[in-house]
């Protein structure tokens, strides 16, 4: 396989993971207009919980498939619980205060969760078990894709389809769309806004956790700090695509993932992390609403 396809494949892999995290950012922003800085920590907690469970299950002698499913599902549920609790503790009480307060609270939450995991577990890198089994039929493909990569693409696709379905066709999806346009009006029309916000956090956290588990089994190691950079980059992806827009978040994630991979592959891998921030600066200057976002006029 040539170098170029390898680079592109790795870019798409990254893009998929960013998309899974960016969804939570963009959904939360769409509804309560908050940059949830602690969102990346949920992703990290998802990966940690999966690691812990997988290790425990391995010691108990479960087989690979059982470990994969049990560890992933429990970790996702746990992360959703964390997301739900985080909203109740740190954001709900200050929903009506200044924007600045909510942002500071979010930073505090992020700092707290990171250090909670650092103290309760470890500050070292931990090897992440290969919970994704090898798929022999993958070698039949013309391009060599690892089974972790395959799982990442497949899961991202499934999540996107499910989420689109949820938002377009279900009652809660309709409520979410209503609440994101006008919370007061939605409330008057009988939408339970508190519930909608909780559900948004739960869904966003679950997808982020899925991303955390997948990427960790791809890279093979995690520590308490992985959520920070991934979170920031996913946020950049969300802004790039147009914050508040779900297709935008996905598109932005792939653009960012590819740019990073190509930049690292052809320019310099030392500055890999800088590309994301440069893209952010450029997009804010050129088209602050993002690729798919609509320019918003503030109500006076």
């Amino acid at each position, binding site marked *: 396989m040539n170098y170029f396809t390898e680079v592109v494949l790795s870019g798409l892999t990254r893009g998929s993971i960013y998309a899974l995290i960016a969804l939570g950012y963009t959904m939360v922003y769409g509804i309560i207009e908050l940059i949830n800085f602690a969102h990346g920590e949920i992703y990290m907690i998802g990966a940690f919980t999966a690691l812990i469970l997988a290790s425990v299950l391995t010691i108990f002698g479960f087989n690979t498939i059982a470990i994969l499913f049990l560890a992933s599902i429990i970790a996702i549920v746990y992360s959703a619980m964390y997301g739900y609790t985080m909203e109740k503790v740190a954001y709900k*009480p200050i929903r009506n205060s200044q924007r600045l307060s909510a942002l*500071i609270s979010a930073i505090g939450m992020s700092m707290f969760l990171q*250090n909670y995991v650092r103290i309760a577990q470890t500050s070292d890198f931990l090897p992440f078990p290969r919970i994704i089994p090898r798929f022999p039929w993958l070698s039949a493909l013309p391009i060599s894709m690892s089974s972790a990569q395959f799982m990442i693409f497949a899961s991202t696709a499934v999540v996107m389809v499910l989420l689109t379905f949820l938002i377009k066709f279900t009652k809660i999806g309709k409520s979410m769309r209503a609440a994101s346009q006008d919370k007061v009006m939605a409330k008057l029309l009988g939408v339970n806004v508190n519930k909608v916000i909780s559900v948004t956090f739960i869904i966003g956290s679950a997808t982020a956790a899925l991303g955390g588990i997948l990427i960790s089994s791809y890279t093979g190691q995690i520590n308490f700090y992985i959520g920070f950079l991934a979170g920031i980059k996913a946020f950049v992806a969300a802004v790039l695509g147009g914050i508040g827009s779900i297709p935008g978040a996905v598109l932005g994630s792939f653009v960012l993932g590819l740019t990073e991979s190509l930049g690292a592959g052809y320019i310099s891998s030392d500055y890999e992390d800088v590309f994301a921030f440069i893209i952010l600066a450029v997009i804010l200057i050129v088209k602050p609403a993002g690729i798919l976002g609509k320019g918003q006029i503030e109500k006076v």
Partner: protein
Amino acid sequence: MTQRLHELRRSLLVSLWFMLLTFPIMVIRVNTITGTIRWRWSNLALIGIGSFVISVVWRYAMQRKTGEVRATGVFAQVGARVGAGAEKVRTVLDSPKVRVRLVSGLLAAAVAYPFLTSMYHTNIMITALTYVVLGLGLNIIIGLGGMLHIGYAAFYAIGAYSYALLNMYFGINFWLALPIGAALAGLFSLLIGLPTLRLRGDYLAIVTLAFAEITRLVLQNWQQVTGGAAGIPNIPRPQLFGMTMRLHQTTTFVYFIMLAVVILTIFVVHRLENSRIGRQWVAMKEDYIACQAMGVSIAKAKLTALGIGAVWGGLVGVIFAARTTFINPASFTVWESVIILSTVVLGGMGSIPGVFVGALVLMLLPEYLRPFAQYRMLIFGALLVTMMVFRPGGFIKKRRKAYTITEAEKQSVIEAGAEADEDTEE
């Protein structure tokens, strides 16, 4: 009574919820190499009891905040007494006479400090004072201007590297580097402020964060110039007319430089906050739409706050480099910025005494409570959240200046008004 029981039951549920929530991370500890599990059941008990207590207090505080319950009995008395006491302290502090005494007392203590204590304590105090300046600088941006900036450590880095690099390549000395470092930091701040001028505040947060990371990554990866992750060693300490000083003398000297910078910062920030420019900043923070409508240029107000705020970071950055004689990018991570942010938020956004006390407490406590040092960031994070929920103004809430108007002045104003009216009638 049933109300109380109900509350306790809710707290019990909360505590069970948190026990469940934290179970995998708090209780299970797997050793992946030996393949053994340690079940730390004591942690479960700790979480259970801890979250129960916190929940009881939290719920009570929340109800107090929303006015659902009033304090009764002992609580009410204590509360009232503390409130009255705080008010009394406030009025006493408001009197100029007391203020002069307090400030001169503090100043005397500050001057005597390095001679009364060991070099170890002097060094700690220098660090704490550094954060006072950093906090006051960031306070201009966030406390007065209302812009969330989470990349302040980058200015600190720019100051430090300005001195280290200018000295290494051009032999520029400490005193010359001070203004250069400060100016460069201010300039950089303006540059990153520019793209966000048209955007709402939250974007600034993320752009500043990104900018700080870029700065750090460049410093870390530009091996040939900055020495990369290994940093720059052998940075000269500050000189005084070419005198040779021993280490403890230099420490004392740096302490006094730092003290002078603290005083300068307080003086300048105090002057600015009650000036035309300070009013613009606060108005922008409180309602930027109304602020524009009243004829204030938001772009200008934002840029001045960003520029002037960053200068202090650069200034103490230079001192930091001169003092430690060695710098590397690891000193300037995002968490450094967040620590500075914490000092501002906890002390009281916009309030000089607030930031001063906040920085001293947050920096000195962990130094002297070593066992807690590893929990420092955890506690800061929790404090930020709690503070925003219950007391967004910080411990020492800013009060705006009251303009004293004597009766005579008032009279003259009214007379002037009457005259003006006559003028128009003519």
